[in-house]
């Protein structure tokens, strides 16, 4: 079953499940491909596997250079030999999410439903609405494909943290330890609002063509760049922006020349323009919507604790003090709900002025905490 996928130009390692996956929206997505990478060695009794879940714009290349974009692994300091998620000890799996654009089935994959008007053409905006739970269902198929019946740990930040929570709720018996980092149990009105600005920017781009831009040979780069710029502001703290840029001008000659730029403007423009080189607009629409739909308390009639009743999973929740997108209060609410069902939970707020992005950056306190938690869990799981 393992084969290079034909959906994207680049041959990412992947596996295809021809039987498809039933989605939350009621539709069955046929022929689902999951692009993934693994690091380290699976032990004899297959008990040392850690699934790492990536965030909105991440990919499966967690600990190595992405061969398509040339970007370094997005969590190189956290996953690797001797790193907190130590690939000398653990077998690490990371998959591109459903709806993504790095080899897994997404809006750019060929429309596979019998009702398709143009079979074989990309789904575009006809791609079904997917949820975080759907992403996790597909990951579960991958884990089973790798003949692993129980994951030692599921770890992820931001949207990756949502997937961790979904794992813990949907398949608690398959998760020994869960680490949602800078995460939330529902996407707040403010979070949805910021996403909507991004989606509107994409839809307003004249090159969007209602989502069928591929057949026109163009891409809605301006819109996607604006979406990224808006989102990027939410990933950093005011303090970090001030420290980095303050009111500095791009060329320090004062405001005399019209068209002069503040350094922060050119930084954001760079963020936007580099993003459009590696990310697909339709995937952005699909995945941001999946995040917006996430609400595990809502599914339980508003009682978050009910989602975790009876859980045997050991939890570590981590938040960052300056994160205003997924604030500490969210993580604390999850920790309290877990306490309410007497689950085994650790919770810590890491002091950092780097905002939401802190989970991706060099934060020694966070890394030490994660490492220690995993060591403790490994001992309880009988891994040594």
């Amino acid at each position, binding site marked *: 079953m393992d084969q290079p996928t034909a959906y994207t130009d680049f041959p990412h390692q992947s596996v295809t499940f021809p039987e498809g996956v039933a989605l939350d929206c009621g539709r069955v997505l046929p022929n689902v491909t999951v692009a993934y990478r693994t690091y380290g060695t699976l032990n004899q009794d297959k008990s040392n596997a850690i699934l790492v879940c990536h965030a909105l714009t991440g990919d499966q290349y967690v600990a190595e250079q992405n061969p398509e974009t040339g970007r370094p692994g997005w969590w190189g300091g956290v996953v690797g030999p001797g790193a907190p998620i130590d690939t000398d000890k653990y077998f690490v799996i990371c998959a591109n999410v459903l709806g993504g654009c790095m080899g897994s089935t997404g809006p750019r994959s060929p429309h596979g439903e019998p009702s398709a008007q143009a079979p074989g053409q990309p789904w575009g905006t006809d791609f079904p609405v997917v949820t975080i739970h759907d992403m996790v269902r597909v990951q579960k198929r991958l884990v089973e494909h790798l003949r692993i019946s129980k994951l030692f740990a599921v770890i992820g930040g931001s949207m990756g943290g949502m997937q961790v929570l979904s794992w813990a709720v949907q398949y608690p018996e398959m998760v020994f330890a869960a680490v949602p980092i800078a995460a939330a149990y529902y996407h707040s009105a403010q979070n949805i609002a910021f996403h909507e600005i991004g989606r509107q920017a994409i839809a307003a781009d004249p090159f969007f063509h209602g989502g069928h831009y591929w057949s026109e040979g163009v891409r809605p780069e301006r819109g996607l760049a604006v979406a990224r710029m808006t989102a990027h502001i939410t990933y950093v703290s005011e303090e970090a922006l001030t420290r980095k840029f303050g009111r500095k001008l791009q060329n320090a000659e004062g405001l005399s020349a019209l068209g002069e730029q503040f350094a922060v403007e050119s930084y954001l423009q760079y963020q936007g323009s580099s993003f459009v080189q590696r990310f697909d607009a339709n995937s952005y629409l699909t995945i941001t919507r999946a995040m917006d739909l996430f609400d595990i308390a809502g599914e339980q009639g508003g009682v978050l604790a009910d989602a975790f009743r009876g859980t045997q999973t050991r939890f*570590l929740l981590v938040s960052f003090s300056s994160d205003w997108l997924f604030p500490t209060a969210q993580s604390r609410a999850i920790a*309290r709900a877990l306490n309410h069902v*007497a689950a*085994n939970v650790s*919770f*810590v707020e890491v002091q950092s002025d780097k905002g939401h992005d802190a989970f991706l950056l060099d934060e020694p306190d966070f890394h030490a905490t994660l490492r*220690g938690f995993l060591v*403790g869990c490994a001992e309880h799981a009988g891994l040594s």
Partner: protein
Amino acid sequence: MSGVKKIRVDLALIAGMVQPGSRVLDVGCADGQLIEHLTRTKQCDARGIEIDMEEVQRAITHGLPVMQGDADTELVTYPDHAFDYVILSRTLQAVEKPREVLRQMLRISTHAIVSFPNFGHWSLRLQLLTRGRMPMTAGWNRMWYETPNIHPCTIKDFFALCDAEGYVVEDWLAADEQGLRTPWRRSPGLANLFGEQGLFLLRKA
């Protein structure tokens, strides 16, 4: 993480009150020394709550399950009878609502183990009598305006509270500052005069 470490004497006294294999919550657990001891030597399922973020990080880094949180606000988030023992070591005098914290402890747990510095010790009484100022001792060493110990009580006061709340004192002892057991356990009056700390094992009537 390997080997059995020697723990603080007062924590050893507390550990002596805990049955092996029980479910324990240590409130104000600092870096988790007692949790680690109970897990390793008594096979307990022990967790902690600690308000100080640095201590929490130290505890988690050592692989111990600890929540950052405040006894006054976190205990209410646990279900009834979740634990066999809830421990509050040298913290009762520092919480905002000691009586409510005790109620919560005995709601979520069958037993409560509480230790506190005894404000009835003779040296404190003497200082107050002779100097007319708030006492300063090894245990009470911060000025009144900056001490975290906002609810000082004596061993006798604590007996009275247990009485009023209908708690059964299953076991109790007085200890000196280092946590060594002192010999006045038959007489609350003497313990209240000579004991630097009180240690109580409670349950609901």
